[in-house]
């Protein structure tokens, strides 16, 4: 398609939480507009309606294979709320430790197996770091890849010890957890955490956790990088060097709105303290374009469908009033995604580790963002280093589990009522809004992190976060738009986005090449 020198390409993105395609409009080698299309509809919300009150605990982990524990926890929290149950301390500890294990595997599987694979893109053949990238990140062969596969499955053994299996267990139930770990189980979890931490320090960081935690500004990050070969040679060090080589910090700015539902409840009497004063290790909140973080109020969440393949309603609806009536027509010209458009206080918001770090007031990321807004580099840096924030608390919490104390407060029947579960899953804010009536699910609405990040336009035509983040992205080669891959993957679009080029016009003429170092 050519119109006034503008060209469009359609890119199909493959991913865990349903396939996505992007339509990109570009002119003179720069993206001028973007549309993010969810191209798969599986109908979980309608599937759940009329089923047993606890069925969300089994079905919603199947929404997403990489963050099923997060869905399970969110579903259970909604039922906790409806039941009005007070959780035993052990239940909070087990939930937290299992949740953190899932986050850590996700951060590193995404970072090392999926994000860093872009370093091998043919566009980078001949760059100084290319040979090193192959050595580290080649599919199923690279040194870092092989070790990451080995260690991420080790950390997941914790979920199996505490909850039977990963993925897709249903051990978190309203009132606590169904499992009754023994002393031996808990001590095994601690050994796994210790071994994993040692590996994470050696390979990913190249330094002890407490050295990394001293990095509190961009300047200190530079000092850290220059400090030793082990810092430069770690995966984090390589990421920083590569990011600078390809100007990753110039990609993927976006709206600058951040949302976190917060997560990891602090049990009473625990030695772990939150980043900000509050009941959670990582704080909930919203940051609107450079403003200070405000508290997060779920009543301000709405979903729009003007541009989504669902039967229209005006404006946005709160998830308790949400409607999910799929609608596709071969003659459709407005609607382009099976994703609804979630908005917070009417605004699109990005979510994920970076949002979490900023809202929790992490000094390094607060400093970096002040220097030029969000970008693909900072987003991925937050993801690769999030385990450093989680591992110390995880170890303490595992040690605080008391095998002699209760893990479950009995909830025999789920009473009628409405409730919600809000947490930060690995990719960011996740919410389930549930209504139970006569032991059955009367209403179920789910907003996933990818729905936030990959949202289409809303009722007012405002782009979703990664649609906006793509604007201004240079495309050196429309046949191989690696820059778009960097931007989308910096949001951790669930899985690698296998970007397939579908239609192009003649793109040999009229495109200025993007200059690269």
């Amino acid at each position: 398609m050519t119109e006034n020198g503008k060209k469009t390409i359609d890119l199909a993105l493959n991913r865990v939480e349903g396939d996505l395609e992007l339509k990109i409009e570009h002119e003179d080698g720069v993206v001028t507009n973007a549309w993010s299309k969810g191209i798969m509809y599986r109908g979980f919300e309608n599937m759940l309606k009329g089923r047993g009150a606890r069925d969300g605990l089994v079905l919603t982990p199947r929404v997403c294979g990489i963050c099923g524990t997060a869905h399970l926890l969110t579903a259970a929290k909604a039922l906790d709320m409806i039941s009005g149950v007070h959780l035993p301390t052990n239940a909070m500890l087990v939930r937290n430790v299992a949740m953190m294990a899932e986050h850590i595997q996700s951060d590193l599987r995404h970072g090392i197996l999926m994000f860093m694979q872009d370093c091998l893109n043919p566009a980078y053949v001949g760059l100084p770091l290319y040979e090193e990238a192959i050595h580290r990140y080649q599919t199923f062969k690279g040194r870092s890849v092989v070790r990451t596969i080995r260690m991420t499955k080790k950390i997941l053994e914790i979920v199996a010890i505490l909850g039977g299996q990963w993925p897709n267990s249903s051990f978190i139930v309203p009132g606590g957890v169904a499992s009754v770990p023994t002393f031996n189980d808990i001590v095994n979890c601690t050994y796994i955490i210790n071994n994993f931490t040692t590996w994470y320090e050696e390979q990913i960081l190249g330094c002890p956790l407490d050295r990394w935690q001293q990095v509190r500004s961009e300047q200190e990050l530079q000092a850290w990088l220059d400090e030793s070969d082990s810092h430069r040679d770690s995966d984090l060090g390589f990421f920083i060097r590569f990011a600078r080589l390809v100007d990753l910090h110039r990609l993927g700015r976006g709206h600058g709105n951040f949302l976190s539902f917060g997560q990891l409840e602090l049990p009473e009497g625990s030695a772990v303290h939150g980043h900000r004063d509050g009941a959670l290790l990582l704080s909930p909140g919203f940051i609107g374009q450079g403003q200070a973080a405000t508290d997060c109020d779920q009543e301000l969440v709405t979903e729009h469908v003007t541009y989504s393949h669902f039967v229209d309603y005006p404006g946005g609806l709160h998830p308790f009033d949400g409607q999910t009536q799929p609608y596709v027509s071969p003659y459709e010209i407005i609607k382009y995604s099976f994703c609804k458009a979630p908005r917070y206080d009417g605004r699109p918001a990005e979510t994920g580790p970076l949002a979490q770090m900023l809202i929790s007031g992490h000094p390094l990321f607060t400093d970096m963002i002040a220097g030029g807004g969000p970008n693909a580099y900072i987003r991925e840096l937050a993801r690769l280093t999030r385990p450093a924030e989680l591992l110390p608390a995880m170890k303490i919490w595992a040690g605080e589990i008391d095998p002699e104390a209760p893990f479950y407060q009995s909830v025999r029947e789920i009473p009628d009522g409405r409730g919600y579960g809000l947490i930060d899953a690995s990719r960011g804010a996740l919410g389930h809004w549930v209504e139970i009536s006569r032991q059955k699910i009367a209403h179920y609405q789910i907003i996933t992190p990818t729905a936030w990040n990959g949202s289409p336009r809303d009722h007012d035509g405002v782009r979703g976060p990664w649609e906006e983040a793509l604007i201004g992205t240079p495309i050196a080669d429309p046949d191989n738009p690696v820059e778009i891959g960097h931007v989308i993957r910096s949001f951790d679009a669930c899985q690698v986005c296998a970007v397939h080029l579908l239609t192009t016009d003649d793109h040999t003429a009229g495109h200025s090449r993007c200059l690269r170092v």
Partner: protein
Amino acid sequence: MRPNLYWLQCGGCSGDTMSMLNADSPNIAEATNSIGLDVLFHPSFSTLTPARHLRLLDELVGGALPLDILCVEGSVITGPNGTGMFETFAGRPKKDLIAELAAQAGLIVAVGTCAAFGGVTRAGDVGGLGLQFAGKDAGGFLGPDFLSREGSPVINLPGCPVHPQVLIGTLSALVVGKRLKLNERNAPLEYYNMLVHQGCTRNEYHEYQIEETDFGQMGCLFFHMGCHGPLAHGPCNKFLWNNRSCKTRSGIPCFGCTEPDFPQDTPFFETPNIVGLPINLPDGVDRPHYLAYKGMAAAAAPERLKHRQPKV
């Protein structure tokens, strides 16, 4: 020449891919390298550029590059009204691509319950089908008589997700040309001739009908808590999950996720029963004899079990 493999993701959650990453001894990297499998494309791991991936698909669909093994993860979405437009690829229904690749593949593996039987996706309003089954009914998307180029029906590896050893073991057999014997649902007997119940550490509770009626009581989960272990076929208690445990050992009922009717219509965590005895008895069991046996077994239950002394 090394046999090649193309991995296609359809109507699913990628949980089978995640499960595959948990494989141990060998892990997925060791396995593909040591059995010499040439993975042409996997959506999560491949580094093919978009243009090269499209060219690869053209070569496979056109037959220029013979495809040895096609792995399909996720169900075939045929809705709404048979159009398949609830899941598209390149602007057309994904189901068309599935059909084109299936027509060329030497062998086809349905990875996970969605691809085998429709699974969770079948329970929705999207017309989700398995490749050669729709729930218990033979047929599915490709039809009951479909045979892949090497004369085999689709090899079903159900499980939500598939157990990683089942996947790697099956691929290891296929790569060396070994044909695994299949059951009536085209799943390898090697992995699906046993019940999830077999090997469960709570078997003795089952034996003497020491029952759990609420979470955490450490009894058998079959009679009240909705456990499908004695009905569901799979190696969960033989191989264990993540090298450590499985749901039934940890006090979570088996949901029968390897079975064609998963997810069942009845509520989870509840056993449909008549006067305290499950409507669905263990696989192949005769009701009158089972009733008599259970009555006697409960009376014979030892005190150490009644008091849950084993703590398993």
